């Protein structure tokens, strides 16, 4: 074997071994620096500075920042985080770089405003983001909808929500529900039907999987809350009529108060507890429910969404 051939074989073997070892070490480094891609540091936090540094390539940079925002929220949400410190600046940088990236505003309305762990708990920043979006895209009715949504759902500020929906209803090609929502704010603010309508609009008009899943989970929760309240009212009526609590929901059916045993949106029949309360069978599968949970129930940090949402 010639010296050159020996060198080639030795170098090839060392190369392959080193390649395998470097991959192993990188995996170890990733484990040691969990979330390093999304570490709680923004090297440049000023949107205007980032825009200037982009040297005219702000479109591409906006896409990168948007991806980072999604990845950041997804990673933290998956881990059940209670803080999303970088979500607002990441979305602000994204929209400064590309003010027409509408999905970023929608994401902000859905995940920046709600309280942790569902969101960052920053409704004011979400409002500023939505207003910024409206200034840059005045003809997009969805931005007005998102603004009204934040005012309604997160701040319970019904006059401002009505104003946002009304402004949006005047935009050409606005969703017909916008006018209706504006009117509902005045007459039926705080009612379940109004909230259902808002979440339905969100579900129907969004193409983002996370936003739709979140809306679907809220719609299921509203349905459960409504069902539990109605069933508990029936139990109270049964007690008033018979002088004792029903032994099961079948008793209500026998008494002609129910046509069949009702089930939650996931198909699990509701349970009647001995003290007359109604409970869902698997509360962890129904995030955001307010009624129908066992006493002292603590919901999981990470809301469970269905793969079908």
């Amino acid at each position: 074997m010639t010296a050159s051939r020996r060198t080639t074989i030795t170098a090839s073997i060392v190369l392959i071994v080193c390649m395998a070892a470097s991959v192993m070490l990188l995996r170890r480094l990733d484990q040691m620096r969990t979330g390093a891609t999304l570490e709680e540091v923004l090297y440049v936090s000023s949107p205007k500075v980032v825009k200037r540094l982009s040297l005219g390539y702000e479109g591409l940079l906006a896409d990168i920042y948007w991806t980072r925002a999604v990845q950041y929220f997804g990673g933290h949400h998956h881990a059940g985080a209670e803080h999303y410190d970088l979500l607002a600046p990441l979305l602000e940088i994204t929209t400064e770089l590309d003010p027409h990236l509408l999905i970023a505003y929608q994401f902000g309305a859905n995940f920046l405003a709600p309280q942790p762990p569902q969101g960052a708990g920053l409704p004011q920043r979400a409002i500023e983001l939505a207003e910024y979006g409206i200034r840059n895209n005045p003809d997009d009715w969805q931005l007005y909808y998102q603004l009204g949504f934040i005012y309604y759902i997160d701040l319970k500020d019904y006059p401002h929500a009505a104003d946002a929906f009304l402004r949006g209803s005047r935009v050409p090609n606005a969703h017909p529900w916008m006018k209706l929502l504006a009117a509902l704010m005045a007459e039926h603010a705080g009612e379940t039907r109004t909230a259902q309508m808002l979440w339905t609009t969100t579900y129907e008009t969004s193409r983002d999987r996370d936003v739709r899943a979140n809306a679907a989970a809220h719609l299921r929760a509203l349905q459960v809350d409504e069902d539990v309240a109605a069933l508990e009212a029936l139990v109270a009526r049964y007690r008033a009529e018979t002088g004792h609590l029903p032994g099961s929901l079948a008793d209500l059916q026998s008494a002609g108060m129910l046509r069949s045993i009702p089930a939650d949106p996931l198909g699990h029949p509701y349970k009647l507890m001995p003290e007359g309360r109604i409970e869902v069978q698997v509360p962890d599968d129904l995030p955001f429910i307010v009624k129908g949970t066992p006493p002292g129930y603590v919901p999981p940090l990470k809301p469970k969404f269905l793969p079908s949402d």
Partner: protein
Amino acid sequence: MNGRIGYIAANTFREAVRDRVLYNLIAFAVLMSGAAIFIGQISIDIERLVVVNLGLTAVSLFGMVIAIFIGIGLVSKEIEKRTLYTVLSRPVRRWEFIVGKFLGLAGTLVVNTFFMAIGVFAALLYVAGHLQSGDGWILVALYFIVLQFLILTALALLFSSFSSPLLSAVFAFSLFVIGSFAEDLRGFAGMTHGITRWLATGAAYLVPNFSALNVISSVAHTQPVATELIITNSAYALIYSTMALCGSVLIFERRNLK
């Protein structure tokens, strides 16, 4: 160490000094003293932070430029000047030439970094009035920067062994930029599906990981660096440099020099 490799390394170091590579130290000294004096006057409470951030970033960038621009010429210049034929006509193997060149430039960069480190600590002493125990972590950051130089030198040498100096510089610089976002790259690869995921993950693991070697921000805040990170990074830099050097050797062994 093999004597022949030692001679080639020493000659590479001498050549770099003769090429006035170390003159960059003057620019660095001006930058550090300027920063130390001016920041104290125009800023409040971040003098130390700025000196550490600016100092270590400058060490990294100056060294990166040297590693790339000297590294890409290590082989091509020898071929152009025909001095390579003189070297290889002696009992010097091609792989010894490559390894010697690598060690020579790595030595130059270590010496350069050593003098710059003195500059950083001098500026720090000037602005803070004294050194504190947390400043010791700056040495770890400097060590990581040297590890970056080793990888970059090996890569520059790899490109230099088959490409023109201009293209080698472009390749090496691109890899430096990509490597600085290596962890983001692996994160993005993890979001893809199917065959794209395999390809993206493969590419993400192949590019050098410079981001784990950058602890400038944390040491500026006197945050400690984990011992395990120091060990893993050292092993990684050594292995990655060896890998790139093996690639250079394999290409250079087969290169027709007639």
